[in-house]
């Protein structure tokens, strides 16, 4: 092979042959990736404005003036999303944990809990979120409850809590299952009860193992808070709709999208980072 002669010996004397080869490979793929990305971006930038409807789209979706005028109001409305998220998240975490534990009980006296846990997770993971929100959000206030108990904030949040707790429960349960039975045996051999074993040995490890997966669920929750707008609360999505009708312009939706992405992209990246770190640790 000619590898020997093409090695940049003088410039990097510490590289082994293998490393030098890999470095060349890496440089080549970076160049190719950059080139092809540039080509795609250029094509989009040059070709899209040539489309016959581009000017109309630009005016109604990417109108700078409308954006500047509505963005502060959208941010205000987004605080409602944040508030709903903040009161739902801890309840979901606790309820999810409780349901996961229900599904792990061994004693026959507690079998109903186990059954309940199984049915609960099956039902709420089997329904579209929006359907649960409609059923609970319209159904329960329909009973004619007095204020404030007819608030869509309460019942909409309850719907989100019920659905997301089912997903969190499944994730935690998979974490519990992933703990090797020898850990339980070691705890039992020291005289710990099943409950103590779960609490001090299994759960701490299980919850740590599934933290990234749970984080992804909570990111999804942050987005799904927008679904509550269908039953009343004027959060950011609904507010964008109000502005759209007022100004006859779709730019506020783009503004809302920007707000969501500003939050969810960093959070998703972080969850991925955690997930990769975990995978590396386990291998």
């Amino acid at each position, binding site marked *: 092979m000619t590898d020997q002669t093409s090695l940049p010996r003088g410039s990097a004397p510490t590289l082994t042959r293998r490393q030098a080869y890999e470095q060349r490979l890496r440089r080549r793929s970076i160049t190719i990736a950059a080139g092809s990305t540039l080509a795609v971006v250029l094509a989009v930038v040059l070709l899209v404005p040539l489309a016959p409807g581009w000017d109309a789209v630009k005016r109604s979706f990417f109108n700078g003036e409308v954006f500047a005028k509505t963005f502060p109001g959208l941010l205000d409305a987004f605080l409602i999303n944040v508030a709903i998220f903040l009161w739902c998240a801890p309840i979901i975490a606790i309820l999810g944990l409780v349901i996961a534990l229900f599904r792990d009980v061994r004693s026959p006296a507690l079998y109903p809990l186990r059954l309940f846990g199984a049915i609960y997770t099956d039902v709420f993971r089997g329904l579209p979120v929006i359907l649960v929100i409609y059923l609970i959000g319209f159904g329960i206030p329909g009973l004619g409850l007095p204020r404030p108990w007819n608030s869509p904030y309460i019942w909409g949040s309850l719907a989100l809590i019920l659905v997301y707790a089912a997903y969190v429960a499944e994730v935690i349960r998979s974490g519990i299952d992933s703990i090797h039975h020898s850990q339980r045996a070691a705890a039992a051999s020291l005289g710990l009860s099943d409950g103590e074993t779960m609490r001090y*040995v299994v759960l701490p490890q299980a919850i740590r193992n599934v933290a990234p997966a749970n984080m992804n669920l909570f990111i999804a929750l942050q987005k799904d808070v927008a679904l509550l707008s269908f039953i009343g609360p004027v959060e950011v999505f609904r507010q964008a709709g109000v502005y759209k009708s007022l100004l006859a312009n779709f730019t506020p939706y783009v503004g809302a999208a920007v707000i969501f992405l500003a939050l969810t992209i960093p959070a998703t990246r972080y969850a991925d980072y955690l997930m990769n770190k975990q995978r590396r640790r386990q291998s």
Partner: protein
Amino acid sequence: MAKLDLQGVTKSFGDNPVCRGIDLTVDEGEMVCLIGASGSGKSTLLRCINLLEPIDDGRILLDGVDISEPGLNPQPIRARIGIVFQSFNLFPHMTAAENVMLAPRRVLGKSRDALEAPVKALFERFDLGQRMHHYPDQLSGGQQQRVAIIRALAMQPEIMLFDEITSALDPELVGEVLDVLRQLRTEGMTMILATHEMAFARELADKVCFLDAGRILEEGPPEILFSDPKEPRTRAFLSRVL
């Protein structure tokens, strides 16, 4: 009265009989070694003794009291019988000291403060004083196994069971773990070991039992069993491993 007395212990997994009528007595302060081919039931027998596996038939007497009675709460008995596994099984989310203190705190109800001094003394006794606050993945295999032994000892058990505790170790780490056993031996701990370390069994055991297909085929003091085995199967096994 024997410290531990097994009478006709049987245990099957499904239709796979693993212990087929095991009789064994272990006296206070005695060290008994179980030897035998892989799959002969050594681990299962140890797990039955500390009630990690329920036995099908027979009796296990600890100080003359039947601990194998079906329906008996196993927790207080397990706290009296320590076991150390081949694969250490330390809790990876706790430091060595936390591993050791968990059961004394939760099962015996001792406070962290009250445990501080005796636990430190245990670590120092086994030459691990510097490693108390390390996590298991920061310890070598030999150190992890010694922590696992300390964890069992911290419950002040009356009997210690060791299941091939050196088999998962690099050869150069075996010595430090065997030294711990020597130390326990001189302190008069009652011990049962499943082991492949024949030289060690010969050096220290009071009694060696050869397990074959779920039975104790032959037992006796190591000088006799190793040099003059009666059963052809014992002879065949020993000629393979010695």
